[in-house]
């Protein structure tokens, strides 16, 4: 029997963790419920959406503290009133994903070329551990090297290790203008063309290949961004043009829709390799469809047949190229490998998990097999701290 609990304050959150015995699955808006490892059935589902809203926003300091269950889209809308934003653009935001959910799944969008992912923008956090300990790390200032950057551990932890209660983020000004240059281009030509974009002085915020076009996003001041877009279109030649605003919106929406697509018989596979390896790895994933790729960061999202061998082979191919991969949305009930071969650092992961959540109460199965399930005897796995 799974019971759902929706705490509405830090105290309620801590009490929920202490009072409920057994295993807990942390859930935000559920937009990535089927990403990474398949969760084991849990005694309690901890719904974070009751922890919502801005705690403090200091526009002059360009920082904001936010409850982790806040829908990311709503946060951006609020910040937008002050001409500020969190400079990440994961596709799932449009489906109502929470800030904490995006953070825990290390999700990021095209703008990561310039701004990195949420791990680069978070400057502090309040977390609750499995034993009820409430811990803070970082703070409210963008520059801060006091103590360990514990917050980073929760980035990509997929709902293991601890519950994010609040996050403090660094903000950026909303650009006055965004402009998009589209160049038609076969997939096989994207690396070369993207290199020309990168070597030009226009400093794009994002460069993505999707559906036969290379899209470059320019953001900045009113006069600056448009001038840069025109300049880039000129550099790229006759196949490139500055898109009209509506066409640009449509192009990026189509890109995001491909990233978050769900289908009955395909699973979404996300990976990152060095940019020079990207074309080779993509070519090797013969059955891939719905490709979006960032030829300058080396990150791509593709749909593969929901077949365990196909997915395992894809993980292996990425690992051979020195990269990392995670399986994302998949048909319900499909038993597919979430990760590639475990890296040597999995020993560290296990030791850290054993120190923070020795009984694996949170998110059991989400990082399996890198973080194996506790064994039959109920003993926690991993090294004891």
């Amino acid at each position, binding site marked *: 029997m799974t019971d759902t609990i929706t705490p509405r304050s830090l105290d309620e959150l801590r009490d929920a963790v202490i009072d409920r015995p057994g295993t807990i699955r942390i859930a935000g808006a559920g937009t990535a419920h089927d990403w990474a490892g398949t969760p084991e059935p849990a005694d309690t589902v901890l719904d974070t959406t009751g922890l919502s809203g801005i705690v403090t926003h200091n526009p002059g300091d360009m*920082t904001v503290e936010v409850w982790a269950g806040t829908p990311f889209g709503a946060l951006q809308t609020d910040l937008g009133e002050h001409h500020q934003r969190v400079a990440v653009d994961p596709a799932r935001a449009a489906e109502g994903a929470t800030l904490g959910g995006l953070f825990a799944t290390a999700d990021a969008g095209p703008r990561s070329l310039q701004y*990195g992912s949420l791990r680069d923008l978070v400057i502090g956090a309040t977390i609750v551990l499995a034993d009820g300990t409430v811990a803070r790390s970082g703070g409210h*200032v963008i520059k801060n*090297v006091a*103590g360990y950057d514990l917050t980073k551990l929760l*980035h990509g932890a997929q709902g293991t290790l601890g519950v994010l209660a609040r996050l403090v983020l660094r903000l950026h000004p909303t650009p006055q203008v965004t402009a998009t240059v589209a160049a038609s281009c076969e997939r096989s030509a994207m690396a070369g063309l993207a290199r020309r974009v990168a070597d030009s002085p226009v*400093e794009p915020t994002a460069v993505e290949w999707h559906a036969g076009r290379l899209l470059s996003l320019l953001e900045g001041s009113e006069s600056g961004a448009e001038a840069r877009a025109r300049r880039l279109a000129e550099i790229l030649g006759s196949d490139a043009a500055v898109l009209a605003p509506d066409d640009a919106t449509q192009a990026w929406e189509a890109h995001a829709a491909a990233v978050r697509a769900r289908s009955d018989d395909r699973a979404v596979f996300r990976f990152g390799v060095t940019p020079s390896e990207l074309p080779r790895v993509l070519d090797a994933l013969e059955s891939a469809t719905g490709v979006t790729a960032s030829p300058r960061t080396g990150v791509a999202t593709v749909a593969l047949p929901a077949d365990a061998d196909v997915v395992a082979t894809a993980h292996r191919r990425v690992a051979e190229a020195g990269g990392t991969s995670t399986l994302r949305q998949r048909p319900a009930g499909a038993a597919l490998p979430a990760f590639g071969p475990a890296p040597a*650092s999995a020993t560290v992961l296990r*030791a850290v998990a054993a120190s923070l959540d020795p009984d694996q109460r949170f998110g059991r199965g989400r990082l399996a097999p890198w973080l194996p399930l506790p064994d039959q005897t109920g003993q926690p796995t991993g090294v004891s701290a």
Partner: protein
Amino acid sequence: MPERTMEAPHGGTGNDAPGAATPPVAVGPELARAFRDVLPADLVITDEVGRRSYECDGLTGFRQIPALVVLPRDADEVAACVRVCARHGVPFVARGAGTGLSGGAMPVADGVVISLQKLRRILEIDVENRRAVLEPGVYNLEISKAAAPYGLYYAPDPSSQQVCTIGGNVAENSGGAHCLKYGFTTNHVLEMEVVLADGSVVTLGGPTGEQAGPDLRGLFIGSEGTLGICTKVTVRLLQTPETVRTVLADFPSIEAAGDTVGDIVDAAIIPAAVEMMDSLSMEASEAATGAGLTVDAPAALIIELDGPADEVEAEFSHLTAICERHGATRMHVPAEAEERQKVWKGRKAAFAAVGRISPDYIVQDGVVPRTRLAEVLTRIAEMGRDAGLRVANVFHAGDGNLHPLVLYSEAAGEHDAAEKLSTDIAELCVELGGSLSGEHGIGTDKACSMPRMFSSDDLAVMHRVRHAFDPDDRCNPGKVFPTPRLCGERPGPYRPHPLEEAGVIERL
């Protein structure tokens, strides 16, 4: 070490100081032999003169002669050395160039210093993928020099960049003047090879920002050598911006300069750098460098914009208009790169130059939310007046990172008062919603102030994580976290609340 003229003792309070030189117990010849099994004999330093040159980092008041110093030449030898330590149950301290300003690389008694000075190869400048693969002992500035022929550079630029190592930068999560726009070391390191306390070798991070599993890379960066030794680093390289425009603007008051910074932020301009200097620091720097600073101006800003020409030109005229609106009394716009370097020299040489106007000084490092800059500076001025000491201010105004320089005379017996004032300033930063350190780290220097910023639970959780990496406290023990040995001996404000202390100390 041209910029390192920190002859001023800082931190030591005579014989009872935690770092006071206690002669180490003679190391059994066994340990030295074990190291000679994995390294040539001349790379195992056992003589006292040799060991003494590793007794402190840039914070020279804290000293401890190590039992042994080893100089491995590659990652395998580092791992072999760490395994020797593990086998003999001996603690070790990784050491880059020793320019740290928080006593992070200070040896531990009866411990080994593992110097990374011989791991100095740039393994790869990968132009296509815009990254560099480095051994940890590579100097920060060497990376940009090696990348320059390809129009690329490495963004984080600590003032000590000619003489500090990338391994030290990783351990400290170092920043620099240009980090407001470009971020800190953590934002530029993709992947690292790390030797753990048991001598095993792991890779943290990956070739892209894409992550499978928790960000162990991000946890390691800034952990001050307490989680392992970094033996290889892959960093991102950025394209050299098309245009750079710099203005040196004088202001009639610190407040006017501070308000200017606020308006720049409000105008959605993110400068590459915004540095502020007060008249005392300008006086010192000008005497040392002749960089063209106005010594009788109460405050000056050095503001730099970089990026595509179309963007920078528009923003630059906006920027100078903002300076004018706040009553800038002079604006100097260097026309060429050389002139710009001169202005920057005036800023970067400020610490060392203070030696010209004061026999001794302490460099402090604290952070406040940017909107509280004027307030903190007023409070610092008051505290200085009360203590009867002068404080010069040089800082990264864009991100609220202060470097107050507390001037004093050891000969006149002002050391303890200066020490107290400096600590009070760091703790004031915490009180105002900021941090004990923006870039120099906690090390030995500020471990006892950590309870001002973090609860005993916060610190206990950090400790749990530390023990997951290093269950026996062998990596740089005694740093970052308050220990009874260190803090029990400290008088006054360092002492954490006894209850808090109890919670933390149990776990040490």
